[in-house]
């Protein structure tokens, strides 16, 4: 591919206090792709996403979005530029209603008609949310919360969506539904997706390419199919 990557990390490091969480991570994501980042617990996957969203200040390297450096900007400016994250644990606003949660997803937007249109689109994707629209976010089940979190992210009309562990703690049927919708928003809305997952099998099957993280380093990158076929990966992450 010769086109410009929508997201590029060049030797990015980040730390919590003195504990280095990620070291010299480099990766590229091209428009229209689904890229998954897989790895064990504590490998630095969530830290990478939090660094991309500028919530965690990086200690070295560069993060480029659309070819422009974004590291060091305020995190609240990024959704307006099309970069949006669904963080680990979903982080629904528990005492805001489903509708209010969705509205907060479009906080920087002022076009009322567009927001209404997008909310209806979210309700189309996740009909259960429409039924629960006046309920508080905290009262939803885990699967419904995941849907709400994704719906909230979609409200900002993202071009790049970062998803952190969307399958965590959900029933297999719900997980399948979530992944179907990830593919749908990628294919029909053209949203580029970066997917962080512990469920490597599922993630790689839904992806074009994958990166493997171990103790804060990228140890492998390849096409998703190739990774799925790689015996080392199968052994380490796919439980064979």
């Amino acid at each position, binding site marked *: 591919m010769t086109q410009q990557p929508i997201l590029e990390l060049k030797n990015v490091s980040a730390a919590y206090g003195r504990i280095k969480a990620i070291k010299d991570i480099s990766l590229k994501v091209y428009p229209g792709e689904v890229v998954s980042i897989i790895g064990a617990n504590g490998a630095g996957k969530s830290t990478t996403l939090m660094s991309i969203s500028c919530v965690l200040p990086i200690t070295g390297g560069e993060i480029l979005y659309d070819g422009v450096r974004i590291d060091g900007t305020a995190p609240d400016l990024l959704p307006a530029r099309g970069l949006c994250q669904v963080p680990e644990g979903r982080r629904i*606003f528990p005492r805001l209603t489903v509708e209010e949660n969705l509205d*907060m997803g479009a906080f920087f937007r002022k076009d009322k008609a567009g927001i209404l249109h997008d909310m209806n689109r979210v309700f189309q994707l996740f009909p259960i949310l429409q039924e629960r629209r006046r309920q*508080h976010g905290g009262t939803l089940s885990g699967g419904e919360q995941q849907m709400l979190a994704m719906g909230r992210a979609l409200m900002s009309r993202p071009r790049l969506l970062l998803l952190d562990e969307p399958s965590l703690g959900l029933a297999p049927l719900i997980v399948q539904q979530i992944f179907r919708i990830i593919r749908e928003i990628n294919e029909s809305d053209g949203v580029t997706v970066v997917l962080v997952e512990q469920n490597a099998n599922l993630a790689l099957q839904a992806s074009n390419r994958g990166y493997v993280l171990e103790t804060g380093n990228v140890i492998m990158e390849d096409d998703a199919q190739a990774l799925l076929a790689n015996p080392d990966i199968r052994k380490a992450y796919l439980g064979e």
Partner: protein
Amino acid sequence: MEVFLQQLVNGITLGGVYALVALGYTMVYGIIQLINFAHGEIFAAGGYMGVILISWMVAQGYPPFVCLGVALVLAMGYCALLAMAVEKLVYKPLRSSSRLSVLLSALGMSIFLQNGLMLTQGVYDRAYPGEMVRGGFEIGGAMVSYMQIVIVGITVVLLVGLNTLVFKTRVGKAMRATAQDKTMSALVGINASRIISMTFAIGAALACAAGIMVGMYYGSVRYDMGFVLGVKAFSAAVLGGIGNITGAMLGGLIIGMIEVFAAGYISSEYKDVFAFIILIGVLYFMPTGIMGENVDDTRV
């Protein structure tokens, strides 16, 4: 019965004022978990701004209601600016420090502002000009002054306005979202600093209105009047369940009632003690307050 009715009327008046001040504590606590000690001083500054502006306008010969209205609006703006300055100067740089540090600097700020008021306004009581609103009427033996009607009226308008702001507008939603999860609210594009600043400003404006009304009700203001009233209003916020807006309103009303009735039926010397006892009792027996945890739809 007459005494009871009279106390009821006085209790509502006082309780409304406490509710206004309690809201500032509860909103700030809800959003950054800080007991803003300087809030009582903002209240006192509001009382002074009221007396300063009203005295000046009365001297210029404006009619009382115009004086009151304009002074209310200007003083509320002034206090909002003051609280935002305190927030930006002292609390914001300490956002990632330990709670003890922030609490101590809040305490320092409270002493600083109180003495600032003393230095510029003097140690003695400063009287509100004349009786702004004269007269009253009688219901079942209880005297209701027009002043009380004005105070309760302004209080109700402000409380309804705040409720609308917090629960109906997008900014209000953003305030609640920020209080619930700061990182996530940043991830959806909410500027937490701006929201926090705004919370301080709104709380200060309400406290300022309360300060002016207390000044008019008792006829004068004093530089240290924010301290005791601040603790009482904080008690009201705790009683209602800290962080809960409806709770603060209710708590304010209850504390006001208890104080007035206790002063009337038990002992007026010890009236200030009751608020403290309620505070301690609530924290000991039901630390979440009356609107805490279970009925938390109205938390910030």
